[in-house]
């Protein structure tokens, strides 16, 4: 058995160029691993083995013709929220169980053009609403580090698949932490770029003013390679940033001597797991060794982020999900009595409980008499949170803290207490409210589970974030740890 699956995109790309192995061999290797580990992990909703092999053969042909793009022939997965032409795209929902997308999302098209091989569609919380993957209509993904635990969410399938070596990288989306939190729980690297950096066209919408796509990879260097292919102005997305995409890889090896890193004091409170706190303190020491200058910063409105988010996100979701009416696509109920029955029953049968609850809260927040007290108020708090960050970035280049207050929790542990699950997103949500880029990277272990460190940058600072993250990964080896795969097939509660 080879260890190709534990290599980075960068290493695979070099190997492919040297002819150490072909993309077809690499793809078959990953397919074999999917076959072997999927019964335990459930990280995919659909896989496309035949198509993947055919694409790999085509990319080998292109390589023979002299093409050497960094992503040519690299097997990846797409979160099942990205529309892929001619393939089922479910968003983890029964509502879209029969939905075959008639077009590709811009991200999918961009990554196809870059030469990636799409292996399959990764599992996720329904319509990206959740932090545990327990809200998927296709069963929850399990954490490869401990099968009794959640992989995080909503991009839990993407993070678990990368962590378990079932693909080289995966796409994700992040509305309140949905890339960074699963990356932290699964011990991989996850980047949420600046709002608008990557086109939202063809991504099934959850909360349009918060949603942003990004890569989940083994390393920051791979995230830079993926981001270069994914990002860019798209006239089909009116919120897309019309600025050129810099070469994120070009500056990745620069020294971070003198980089000003702020430690947010509001992130180190009673709710933070002691082992995570210790790991983050150690990470700070590593950054200091690299020449970073550490200081304390304050983001006083942090505590208001979760309440504001749980108005804004449900409000936008209630509007976005009103399109599912059983008329044009998606689930339609059997034998509707009339138009009202058709719409209500199709929606009620198609949506899961968490989605329905959020639609209800959002509808309430937007309903007559409550708009000012809830939605407008939340958008004003959003300004205060954004201003906190803008003030902090006058003093420091990056802000550092834990990605999550605790390591991966057990499946079922929080499912009866949604509010306690929502509080898991305390460190990630304010970044979406402010539209900032942030990265989660492995920075230690707590009770045998990965710990994620989050670095937050100012708007459009992805190059600086990736540079700092890469330098940290040159200094540490947390990102090289992978779940023990020797005991594949063991039962719940044990590592794979």
């Amino acid at each position: 058995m080879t260890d190709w699956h534990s290599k980075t995109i960068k290493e695979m790309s070099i190997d492919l160029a040297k002819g150490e192995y072909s993309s077809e061999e690499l793809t078959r290797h990953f397919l074999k691993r999917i076959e072997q580990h999927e019964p335990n992990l459930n990280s995919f909703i659909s896989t496309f083995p035949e198509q993947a092999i055919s694409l790999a053969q085509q990319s080998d042909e292109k390589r023979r013709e002299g093409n050497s793009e960094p992503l040519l022939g690299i097997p990846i997965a797409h979160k099942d929220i990205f529309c892929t032409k001619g393939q089922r795209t479910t968003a983890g929902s029964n509502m879209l169980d029969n939905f075959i997308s008639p077009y590709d999302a811009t991200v999918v098209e961009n990554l196809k053009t870059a030469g990636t091989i799409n292996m399959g569609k990764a599992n996720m919380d329904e319509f990206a609403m959740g932090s545990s993957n327990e809200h998927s209509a296709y069963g929850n993904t399990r954490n490869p580090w401990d099968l009794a635990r959640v992989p995080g969410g909503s991009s839990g399938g993407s993070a678990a698949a990368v962590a378990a070596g079932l693909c080289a990288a995966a796409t994700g989306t992040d509305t309140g932490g949905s890339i960074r939190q699963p990356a932290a729980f699964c011990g991989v690297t996850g980047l949420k770029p600046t709002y608008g950096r990557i086109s939202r066209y063809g991504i099934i919408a959850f909360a349009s003013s918060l949603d942003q796509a990004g890569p989940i990879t083994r390393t920051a260097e791979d995230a830079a390679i993926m981001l270069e292919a994914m990002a860019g102005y798209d006239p089909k997305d009116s919120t897309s940033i019309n600025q050129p995409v810099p070469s994120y890889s070009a500056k990745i090896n620069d020294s971070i001597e003198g980089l000003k890193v702020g430690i947010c004091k509001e992130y180190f409170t009673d709710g933070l797991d002691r082992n995570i706190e210790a790991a983050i303190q150690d990470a700070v020491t590593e950054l200091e060794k690299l020449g970073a200058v550490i200081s304390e910063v304050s983001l006083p409105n942090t505590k208001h982020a979760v309440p504001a988010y749980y108005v804004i996100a449900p409000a936008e979701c209630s509007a976005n999900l009103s399109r599912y009416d059983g008329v044009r696509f998606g689930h339609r109920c059997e034998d509707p009595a009339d138009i009202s029955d058709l719409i209500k029953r199709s929606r009620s049968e198609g949506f899961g409980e968490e989605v329905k609850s959020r639609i209800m809260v959002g509808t309430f927040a937007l309903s007559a008499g409550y708009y000012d007290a809830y939605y407008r108020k939340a958008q004003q708090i959003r300004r205060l949170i954004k201003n906190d960050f803008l003030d902090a970035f006058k003093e420091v280049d990056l802000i550092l803290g834990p990605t999550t207050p605790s390591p991966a929790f057990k499946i079922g542990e929080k499912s009866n207490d949604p509010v306690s699950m929502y509080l898991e997103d305390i460190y990630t949500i304010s970044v979406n409210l402010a539209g900032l880029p942030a990265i989660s990277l492995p920075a230690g272990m707590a009770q045998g589970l990965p710990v994620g460190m989050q670095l937050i940058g100012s708007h459009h600072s992805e190059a600086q974030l990736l540079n700092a993250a890469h330098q940290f990964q040159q200094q540490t080896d947390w990102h090289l740890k992978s779940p023990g795969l020797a005991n594949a097939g063991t039962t719940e509660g044990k590592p794979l």
Partner: protein
Amino acid sequence: MKIDNEVILNIAELAQLEVKDEMISQYADKMTAMLNLIEEMQSVNTDNIEPVSNPLDAVQTMREDKVTEKDLRDEYQAIAPEVDSGLYLVPRVVE
């Protein structure tokens, strides 16, 4: 704020969702818990604070009023539950 059964039924109607009788109180409890979380916002002074609708404070961009996409009606209707002669079918609305 306590959400009662009447509020639940009203919101369900606005959201076009069917809530079965036995689920009403469960929804009421869940929404009350969520609203208690949200209620904390009211303690924040937001006088004269401009709301954020786009995190980059970008304004809506406009494009030239020109046809750029081809007609894909057949492809889009191929995934519809019920169509006839290019029309989406629903139960009779007008008697």
